């Protein structure tokens, strides 16, 4: 059995993250290459939206990631509050910028899709508004945690934002069902057959996998910087090979 608590210590997670991130980066590149190929060269032209629909291949994966990363942040927040582990707060902090970026990209690509199809860059529809709130929750988390000098207290305050804010994720997801929105309903669901061509679905899933692997690689990379920033007085940091000259 793996002793998970061993990896909960920053001293052993720092080298582990260093070994892992290149693999996830390589997977992200491979999935991205395959996903882009399908997005532009395999998936057929849409009969209603022409070539404009191709925005879906990044819009949907970016939106999924923005919601998923927030859930992972909330998970680490819960672990941090329950077990008082230092690494949990560092993981949340490492995920927040990437999540914020995906929330922004979801809104950005949505605007670029909305303009030609709806005739508006933005509408105050339930789906768009709740995604905007998610973006602000990320920014709020980042602003709050960076405003508090003591990292442990910053983690605790951030954990509250992450845990309270996570109720917004199902609101985003179900907004298209609960309210009468201009935004279309879910294209993919677990209960019924997807309402799109198989090659389109594959392109979207591959791009989603690419963004997922990217997010893992990026958060592992960023958490190493956070670990060093916070543990700089620890003995193990001074003994790291990259600290010798």
């Amino acid at each position, binding site marked *: 059995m793996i002793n998970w608590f061993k990896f909960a210590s920053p001293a052993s997670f720092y080298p582990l993250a260093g070994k892992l991130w290149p693999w996830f980066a390589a997977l992200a590149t491979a999935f991205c290459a395959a996903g882009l190929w399908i997005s532009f060269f395999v998936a057929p032209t849409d009969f209603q939206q022409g070539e404009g629909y191709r925005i879906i291949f990044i819009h949907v994966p970016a939106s999924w990631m923005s919601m998923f990363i927030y859930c992972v942040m909330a998970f680490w927040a819960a672990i941090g509050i329950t077990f008082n582990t230092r690494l949990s707060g560092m993981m949340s902090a490492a995920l927040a910028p990437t999540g914020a*970026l995906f929330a922004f990209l979801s809104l*950005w*690509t949505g605007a*670029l899709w909305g303009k030609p199809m709806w005739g508006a860059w933005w509408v105050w529809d339930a789906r768009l508004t709740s995604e905007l709130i998610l973006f602000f929750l990320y920014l709020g988390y980042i602003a709050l945690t960076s405003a508090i000098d003591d990292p442990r207290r910053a983690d605790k305050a951030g954990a509250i934002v992450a845990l309270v804010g996570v109720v917004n994720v199902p609101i985003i997801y179900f907004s298209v069902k609960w309210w009468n929105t201009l935004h279309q309903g879910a294209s993919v669901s677990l209960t019924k057959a997807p309402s799109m061509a198989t090659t389109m679905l594959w392109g979207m899933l591959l791009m989603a996998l690419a963004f997922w692997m990217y997010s893992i690689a*990026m958060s592992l990379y*960023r958490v190493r*910087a956070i670990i060093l920033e916070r543990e700089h007085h620890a003995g193990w940091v*001074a003994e790291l090979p990259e600290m010798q000259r």
Partner: protein
Amino acid sequence: MNWGSASEFFAMGGYGLYVWGSFGVTFAALLVEALLTRKRLADTRRLLRRELAADREALTEHASRRP
């Protein structure tokens, strides 16, 4: 294959601005994030190396002053 020529590909059936605006900004943003994060780790390491070197210097100086 959907495209007869490169210019057809870049035109995206008249949606070029929207499609390339989405893909371009997305990949530019991911690249910038990766570069900024790499810089953050490199800067932290440089700062820590300098701190450690200063500590070692102070220690040896202190040791050499002892009678």
